[in-house]
């Protein structure tokens, strides 16, 4: 969450920029997670965070074959370590995913929620080092996992039943037109099919809305427990020779839901690492840490927040006391606002933030 000193400017550029962020949000960003994700929640891909790699370039392979293919395309014939590569996946889903039934997922959901991220990054200069990071993220408790949520599954099955029955109707219309299965209809036949389907007035929107509602309303203040560990290293060349250890980092998020209107979140991050900008020198490893406690009150549509943050280690300590809120004006737009006081060493200042978030239709 960026903080602007006493500025409440909302510009078109901000709207456009935030639209991109909103589109990239995943299922678990509903509710309070939206607020915390940016700074203190366990990152989706911790290895990318450690190297400050752009998350939009991440690859998410769904099979071992696709992973090896993307690795092969990233590694040219003279380099062993790719110049820029970022990948994040669940090892369990990668290995078993194609044959993994809903029953099997339920039995070992912690394993399938465990995710591995890998990233490499090399600068352009002659003395630039090749940085490599690897991290594991564990989701030990996640009542908002949609695959195992009975309410979500019930709504999902209602929607998928409707969808396949609609597909059956189309298949029956094609059969009546004597179009063999698997054969594309002619233009004239397609017009007839389109007209016949339109006459059926099939509308899945209410079921989709019910599914979205089941996803968001029930989960904003669920119990959560995430943790992640990562390690970083670097090498003066792309073959990995003379590589060195550059640091470790860990994250922890624990949330307690107090239904129906409260959630208490605790987040922490600790690191013992060199600065990423230290490419050619051998500066010492430095320790740092952040902690945050947040209390949310409200619902998925509106909520208020009180939080305390602290940053310490071998650097100037920082403190922040903050309060704010989140308001969903519609499915397309929501607003975050906050104000607080920030101390950096002995100096303090007033800080505030105002963000208008735009969720593009269909995202």
């Amino acid at each position, binding site marked *: 969450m960026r903080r602007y000193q006493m500025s409440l400017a909302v510009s078109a550029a901000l709207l456009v920029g935030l639209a991109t962020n909103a589109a990239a949000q*995943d*299922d*678990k960003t509903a509710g309070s997670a939206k607020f915390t994700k940016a700074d203190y929640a366990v990152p*989706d891909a911790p290895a990318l965070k450690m190297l400050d790699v752009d998350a939009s370039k991440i690859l*998410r392979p*769904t*099979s071992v074959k696709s992973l090896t293919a993307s690795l092969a395309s990233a590694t040219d014939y003279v380099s062993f370590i790719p110049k820029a590569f970022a990948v*994040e*996946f669940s090892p369990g*889903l990668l290995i078993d*995913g*194609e*044959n*993994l*039934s*809903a*029953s*099997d*997922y*339920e039995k070992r959901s912690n394993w*399938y929620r465990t995710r591995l991220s890998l990233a490499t990054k090399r600068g352009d200069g002659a003395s630039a080092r090749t940085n490599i990071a690897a991290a594991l993220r564990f989701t030990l408790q996640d009542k908002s996992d*949609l*695959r195992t949520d009975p309410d979500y*599954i019930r709504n*999902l*099955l209602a*929607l*998928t*039943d409707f*969808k*396949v*029955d609609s*597909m*059956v109707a189309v*298949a*029956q219309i*094609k*059969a009546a*037109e*004597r*179009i*063999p*299965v*698997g*054969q594309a209809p002619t233009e004239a036949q397609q017009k007839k099919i389109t007209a016949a389907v339109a006459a059926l007035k099939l509308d899945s929107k209410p079921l*989709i809305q019910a*599914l*979205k509602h089941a996803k968001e309303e029930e989960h904003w203040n669920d119990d959560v427990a995430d943790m992640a560990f990562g390690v970083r290293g670097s090498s003066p060349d792309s073959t990995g020779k003379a590589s060195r250890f550059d640091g470790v980092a860990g994250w922890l998020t624990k949330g307690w839901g107090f239904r129906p209107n409260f959630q208490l979140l605790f987040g922490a991050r600790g690191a013992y690492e060199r600065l990423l900008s230290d490419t050619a020198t051998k500066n010492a490893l430095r320790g740092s840490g952040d902690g945050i406690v947040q209390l949310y009150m409200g619902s998925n549509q509106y909520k208020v927040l009180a939080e305390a943050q602290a940053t310490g280690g071998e650097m100037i300590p920082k403190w922040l006391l903050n309060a704010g809120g989140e308001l969903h004006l519609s499915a397309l737009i929501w607003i975050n606002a906050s104000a607080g006081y920030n101390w950096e060493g002995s100096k303090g200042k007033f800080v505030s933030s105002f963000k208008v978030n735009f969720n593009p239709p*269909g*995202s």
Partner: protein
Amino acid sequence: MAKTIMFNPLGGVLSTRSEAGQGTSGSYRLMIFERDGFTIVPPSPIGGQFKAGATNVDPLPGTAMHNDGRFIQMLASVGVFEPERAYALHLAIVQDGHDLDHEDDTGTDEGGGPTHESDKIIVHLIAKPPQAAMNARNSNSVSLLDVLKAEALEKLVETVAAALPPAASAPAAKKTAKKTGGNS
């Protein structure tokens, strides 16, 4: 487009096993078409839901031989989950407890909706030639003599039926007419 799967016409009833991967839930329907590809075979559509505890084994109508030349299309809709939005669907043809073969549709959903729909899985069922069928029977520990006896009996019935006049080929009707005192 359709995957050909060969079965033993002398074997047991054919059935399908429908499965969804990626730990997801959803629904499916199976459309069975005659060999022309568009005549729907009752009782299709048959189907069910992919959910925890479901086995989703559906017997095909009639004997194995009845399904020679038929097409089976799986229509499916499954939930897709962030961040991968991956889906996997499988349709296996089963006979006498063994998977004969299967067809799959796997990939990553490119849309933005909560579900992925598939109509790509189409299977064309073809009966194995007689010799291959007999070999298959033998491999299932059924004697060749049984197969030959069954085929000889079938041929005998066909020959007798062709040789007799039409009325004689319906002995049951004749018997009934006699009992009631009617002329036949």
